Every structure is written in structure tokens, then in C-alpha cells.
């Protein structure tokens, strides 16, 4: 009991070991979070805080017509990423798990895009999506007799195509995580199901899918959190166009900060984004908890 309360020398040493890193966390993560909130409630010249203005910055941001667009687009990005980006790795993972030949080759192959830096990825796909005859995808379409498409310049396609680009880069890495989980499923389960007369589809439906549901939920929330912050992809590929069809919340934040140098407005917007993300994470935790009970 006594040494539970007593502060020992090794506690001091322990903290001394941890303090340098904690200072870095404070400098790069925690203080900026609080600073953002403070900045968002003040007016400022450059970085210098002038006076308290309450929620004025927030109201200004909310009344910006681009905000509504960016807000809708960001949700559209998220929905498309759930439709495309979430499903593709699961399919990849299940199918590659079922191969016995060239498995290592498949694993390496689908992971390859993941090591391509994000910026390089968006530049590469910008060339694939060139709307004229010389766009890579249009060259390939012309070989099978299909007319050149507008790709990113068609506002209806812009967001799904950007999501497709992100999926190309990320799906392989996520698929490997699913594969690791699938290989951990006990073979007995499948054998038992087979004895009960379950065909291949039924085994996937009733054994494989439920077994990866847990990791799937985690991957989903991680994906929502990351896609919600989509920024440089539309910035480089479309510059938010055509006509604002692909502008995202984070891109708007960047514009406030580093194009208009309106730091308080940028801070207000990022606080709002943070709140949405925290709500999403909270919702997720609640959902998983209630489904476990």
C-alpha cells in the first residue's frame, strides 16, 4: 500500500524519458488544437490575435456559398468512398485468399500503388483522365471503339473518379489487412459448414464476411476520417472544379489560410471539421458497443 502512494525515483526517471516526446506532442498536436479554437474566436492580422469576436468567424464561413458546396461535396466524397473504396479491398482480400498459385505475386502487385507518393498518384491519374484523344484512358477506349470521354471535366463523374484514384492507391494495403484476418479464420468452421451442406457462396456469406466484420468496421471509420480530410487530390486534379463540383472542406480551409491569409476563418472551419470527425468517431464507438452487447 505504502509504495503505491509514494513517488519514487524511478517515476521521476520514467517521466524524464517521456518528456521530450511529450513536448513534441504538445508542440505539434495538442497546443495547435487549442490554439485553433482560440484563433477561431478572435480577429487577427496575420497570426497576431487582435480581439475577441465570438462566433463571427464561424458565421462568416457558414455564409460563404462555397462552404455549402464543399460541405455537400465532402459528404459525397465520403459516400462514394464507402461505395467504392470500402468494398474493393474486401473483394481483393477474399479473392486473393482463395488462390494457391502466385499468391505472393498478387500480394506484392496490389500493394505496389501504395508506395507511390500521394502527389505522384494524383499527377499520374490526371494524365489518365485527360479528356482529349491523348488521354491514356481515352486511348484505350478508342482501341475498343468507344468515344473519348470527358472524365474529370464531367461534374457528375469528378468525385467518383477522384475516389477511384484514391482507391487505386489504398486498396491493396487494406486488402492485405483483410487477408491477414481471413487467414486467421479457423478451417474447422468451413469444414463444419460444408458438412452441413453449405456451398461456396454460403460459406463466404456466413463465415468469411462475419469473421472480417470487426476489422471491417474499424477500416470503415478510419476511411471515413481520412476521406473527410480530402484536400490535395481535388486541389491538384481539378482545382475544385468544374465549377466547384469537387471542392472539399479541407481544400476550402487551405484556401482561407494560405490563399486569403484569413487564419481565423481557416481555424473556425477546421474546428468545425474536427467536431464533425469527433461526432463520427463517437457514433462509431457507440454503434460497435451496442452491437457487441
Amino acid at each position, binding site marked *: 500500500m505504502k509504495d503505491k502512494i509514494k513517488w519514487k525515483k524511478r517515476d521521476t526517471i520514467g517521466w524524464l524519458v517521456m518528456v521530450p*516526446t511529450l513536448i513534441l506532442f504538445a508542440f505539434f498536436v495538442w497546443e495547435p488544437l487549442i490554439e485553433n479554437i482560440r484563433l477561431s474566436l478572435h480577429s487577427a492580422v496575420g497570426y497576431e490575435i487582435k480581439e475577441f469576436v465570438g462566433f463571427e468567424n464561424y458565421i462568416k464561413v457558414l455564409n460563404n456559398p462555397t462552404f455549402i458546396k464543399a460541405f455537400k461535396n465532402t459528404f459525397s466524397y465520403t459516400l462514394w468512398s464507402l461505395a467504392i473504396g470500402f468494398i474493393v479491398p474486401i473483394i481483393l482480400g477474399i479473392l486473393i485468399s482463395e488462390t494457391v498459385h502466385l499468391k505472393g505475386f498478387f500480394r506484392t502487385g496490389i500493394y505496389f500503388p501504395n508506395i507511390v507518393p500521394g502527389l505522384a498518384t494524383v499527377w499520374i491519374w490526371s494524365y489518365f483522365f485527360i479528356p482529349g484523344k491523348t488521354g491514356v484512358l481515352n486511348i484505350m477506349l478508342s482501341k475498343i471503339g468507344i468515344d473519348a470521354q470527358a472524365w474529370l471535366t464531367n461534374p457528375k463523374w469528378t468525385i467518383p473518379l477522384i475516389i477511384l484514384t484514391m482507391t487505386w492507391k489504398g486498396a491493396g494495403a487494406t486488402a492485405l489487412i483483410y487477408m491477414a484476418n481471413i487467414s486467421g479464420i479457423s478451417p474447422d468452421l468451413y469444414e463444419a459448414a460444408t458438412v452441413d451442406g453449405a456451398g*461456396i457462396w454460403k460459406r463466404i456469406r456466413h463465415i468469411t464476411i462475419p469473421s472480417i466484420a470487426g476489422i471491417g468496421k474499424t477500416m470503415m471509420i478510419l476511411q471515413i476520417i481520412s476521406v473527410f480530410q480530402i*484536400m490535395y487530390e481535388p486541389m491538384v486534379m481539378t482545382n475544385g472544379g468544374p465549377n466547384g463540383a469537387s471542392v472539399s472542406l479541407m481544400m476550402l480551409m487551405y484556401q482561407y489560410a494560405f490563399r486569403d491569409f484569413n487564419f481565423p476563418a481557416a481555424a473556425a472551419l477546421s474546428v468545425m471539421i474536427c467536431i464533425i470527425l469527433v461526432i463520427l468517431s463517437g457514433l462509431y464507438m457507440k454503434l460497435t458497443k451496442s452491437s457487441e452487447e
Partner: protein
Amino acid sequence: MSKRDLGKKHNKFFGKYEDKKDGVIRGFDVHSTKVKILCIIIMILCLSFVVVSVFPILWVFLASFKDIKEFTREVSIIPKSFDLSKLQESWNALKFQRYYINSFISVGGSVICAVIFNGLLAYGFAVLRPKGYKIAYGLVMWSLLIPATTSIVAVFRNINLVGLNGTFVPLWLAFGANAFYVVIFKEFFQEIPKEILEAAKLDGAGVLKVFSTIMIPLSKPIIMVVVIFAITAAWSDFLLPYLVLNGSGKETVMVKLFSFKDTPTDAVSVLRATLFAIIPPTVLFALFQKQITDGATAGAVKG
């Protein structure tokens, strides 16, 4: 003759399925034609996934050999000639050697910081566990959920306040505060048997000595994972480097690639710059394929 030979022929391909002890399709399924066809379809699909994954990267290599006229006029994938001097020309014109050196400096420092700082913190969380460490641990875990880019404005402000703008230092140190790496290290450190550490302590080794002579050598595999993560992340990082380094003469490859969006540049130069940007990670991947693909799943341990 045919029936037996056909059977044999199939065995070459499907024989291996007989030994398949995991997954949905099992050895005993492969006797029906339907399942055999399914196996072939799956193979073809997986091959096409690899083609889709690899082709765009391959295309960059091919298209970099086109000159601007060929690139904008010719409807073709394969270039007319493979002339390395064209790449050399762009390399010199874009001054890429300088960007490479800057990137290497930035990546090197970032990797060292990522291992030392996050490793030390995880050492505290997993082994030393001083009183009250749970508060710090909670805060670190909590910052896993808060995306870093949302507070980029305030981070940049801090960097300006301490006068480190235009230097590599903030980029290095930023890698020292990564909750994800801390978690990876902590999970691993917890598995190290307590007895080894206790024995060292009895021998009179100090806390830091235990860390450097026991923890680090025992943790080589996990350090490798973090090093590879940090190399790819630092090489690809551009937002903070752009804000901190642009215009300072210390621009990295990614800063250059990012700044193309504001400066009109001909397509072929951008394409070749993209090629230069993906060569180092590709080489790294070629050398450490196994560690990298294994590391991809190790990172998800925490789920």
C-alpha cells in the same frame, strides 16, 4: 487417351488446391467442374487486379520517354524511342539533384526522430510506467483520432513563433510526435519478457542503458517496420514541407511536385518529375518487398 491425360493436365494446376487447408474453397471442392471454373475465374481476376495496379506506374516510365510533341499529339502508349538523354535533360533543367538531396536530408532526420522519440515514449508507456503515465497515454491515444492536417494553421504558427521556418528541423521533429508509431512500439515492447529487463536492472544498468542495449537490439523487426513507414511517409509528405520550405532553397521533391499546380509547366516535365519522385520508393519496395507487405499488416495490429 484423352480423359486420363486431361485429368493429369488438370492436376498440375488444380493439384495444388488439393492441399489447400484454409479459406472458403477446399481441396475436396475442386473435384467439381463448377468449382474448377470458379478457381480459374478468380485467378484471372487477381491477375487483372495486378495489371490495374501496376500499369499506371509502368505507364509513367513509358510516357517519360516521349517528348512534348509526341505526348500531346500521338495517340499511343508506347513511345517511339527510349532515349535516356531526354530524362537527363529534364533532370538537369528541373535541378532535380538538389531536390533529391533536400529530400534525403529531410527523410533521414525524420526517420531518426520517428524511431528515437516515439520509441522512448513507448518505452515509458510499456515498461517504465511511472505514476500517472496513463494520463499521457490517454492524451496520445486520443490524438490518434484527431487528424493532424486540421490544425496545420496552428502548427505552422508555432513553427514561425520559434523561428524554425525555412529549416528542416520542424519537419524532422514532427515525425517524433506520431501516435501511430508510439502504439506500434508499445505493442511490441509489452511482449518483451519482464525477466530480461529485471536482470539488466539488477546488473545496475540505467534506464537509458536498458533502452539502448536491450530494448533497441530486441526490437529490430519493429524498428524496421517504423523505419519503412517513416521513410515512405517522409518522402511523400508535402503539406508542411511546402509551407515551411517553399522559397527557402531547401525544397524537397514533393514540394516541387506540389508547386507545379500553381506554376504552369509543360506536361512532360511534370511527368518526368513524377517519375523521379517514384523511383526511390520503388527501389525501396523492390529491396524490402517482404518487410513492407508484412509491415502493412503489422500496423493494423492495434485494429
